[in-house]
């Protein structure tokens, strides 16, 4: 940092920025606190029926009780399924995008199929998946994969095709072959595209996993939520949803942090 002699204006400006940032964070915190407190109070005075809507203390108690039993197991199962689906989706997605980039003919041929597959609600394939790969973890992972794969392929292929033509031409002035163009220009130029699709994929894989767990599973957060609904225990449902939100946020942050480590220069 070369900020030895900053001007007064600069200092004022920096202070202002910092102040704004703190204000934003504080407001966010306030919203959460007001929401939780409001919920709790309304539930206590009976405006909200806590049997249907639960309440923060009930959720907390459920959470404590669960953690003594098998909450961690459920969270672990969902995380594992999501990670496997996510990793497979990303690797396969990149591989397919590379193949389609390599062969213009193939990508032209497959274009309408990709578009149809992309707009098809993958949940509709649930029964087919269960029959083909069996009910259980493989079906859930397949669901996660199906939901994230096509989007990944389309997004990454799009990034590949939009790579700066001048850079490709520059490589060709040194007689770069197609493989060199791929590894030295296309892939490094698309690191940001990869990370964007990772961020989208985390969300999509979770959607796939939870959908899959709704349909078939005997464990996982999706199972917990569905089970809670079936025995009409809304505390369990709410607890499941909140843990899910936390898991999603942590996974998303993991991608963001990885990105920051890998893409050092801005």
């Amino acid at each position, binding site marked *: 940092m070369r900020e030895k002699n900053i001007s007064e204006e600069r200092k004022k400006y920096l202070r202002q920025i910092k102040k704004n940032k703190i204000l934003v964070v504080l407001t966010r915190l306030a919203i959460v606190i007001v929401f939780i407190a409001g919920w709790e109070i309304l539930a206590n005075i009976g405006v909200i029926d806590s049997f249907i809507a639960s309440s923060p203390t009930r959720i907390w108690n459920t959470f404590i009780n669960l953690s003594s039993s098998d909450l961690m197991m459920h969270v672990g199962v969902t995380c594992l399924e999501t990670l496997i689906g996510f990793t497979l989706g990303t690797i396969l997605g990149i591989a397919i995008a590379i193949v389609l980039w390599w062969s213009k003919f193939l990508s032209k041929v497959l274009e309408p199929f990709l578009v149809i597959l992309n707009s098809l609600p993958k949940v509709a394939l649930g029964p087919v998946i269960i029959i083909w790969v069996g009910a259980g973890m493989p079906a859930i992972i397949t669901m996660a994969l199906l939901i994230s794969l096509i989007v990944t392929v389309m997004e990454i292929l799009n990034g590949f095709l939009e790579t700066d033509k*001048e850079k490709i031409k*520059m490589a*060709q*002035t040194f007689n*770069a072959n197609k493989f060199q163009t791929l590894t*030295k220009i296309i892939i490094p*130029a698309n*690191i940001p595209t990869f990370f964007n699709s990772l961020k989208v994929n985390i969300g999509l894989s979770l959607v796939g996993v939870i959908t899959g767990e709704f349909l078939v599973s005997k464990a996982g957060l999706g199972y917990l939520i569905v089970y809670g609904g079936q025995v009409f225990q809304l505390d369990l449902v709410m607890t499941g949803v909140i843990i899910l939100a936390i898991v999603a946020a942590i996974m998303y942050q993991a991608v963001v942090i990885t990105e920051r480590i890998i893409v050092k220069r801005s």
Partner: protein
Amino acid sequence: MKNILELKNIGKKYQAKNGEIEALKNINLKVQEGEFVSIIGPSGCGKSTLLSIIAGLEKQTAGEIYKNGEIGYMLQTDSLLPWRTIYKNVLFGLEVRKIKTSENEKYVQELLKKYNLYEFKEKYPSQLSGGMRQRVALIRTLATRPSILLLDEAFSALDYQTRIMVTNDIFQILKNEKITAIMVTHDISEAISMSDRVVVLTNRPGTVKKIHKIDFEMENRNPINCRESPKFSKYFDTIWKELDVHA
């Protein structure tokens, strides 16, 4: 002096769905070793196409080319790779051509030192000014030791001052390294100030309209001092009139 490049009746037709575009027709040109030739002509007359054909990026649809040396091609944009350091950028061509020997690396380091970029070698392109980036791009091209250098409006992205400086630098570099150069430009002064000959092309399909021999009859001519010669404005007027759309 012998010819290092010879173009014989070069023609190029582009095929597209909605028709055929004849970009070049009957181009004949001989370039001698060490010569600096500029190509000037109306927009869209096929100048870039001609360079791409010489470089082998496009195939001509008529005529023949004889090349007697390695070609280096400097595009209009510097096309530095933002994810590589300056040093890794200048090594790009050597890597791709699989000739990244320690001898060539040493040559690159010399070039970086000579053109005041050595201390920036671990920086990233975004940290350099436009003129510096252009010089980096030039060194990247020179690293593979081309004997013929093609320049496609390589300086048009620079402001006037920087442009004069960079063209002067590059002129000296080319003379030092004894490199033959073919430069496409829109700028008549730039063409006259750097060249031994200026080739004027016609509207599309581009053909050679006229070739002007430029000679200031001065020792140690460079792109800056030749502008003071009385001959400079004479050349300028002649070429200006020739490029006139109504002529």
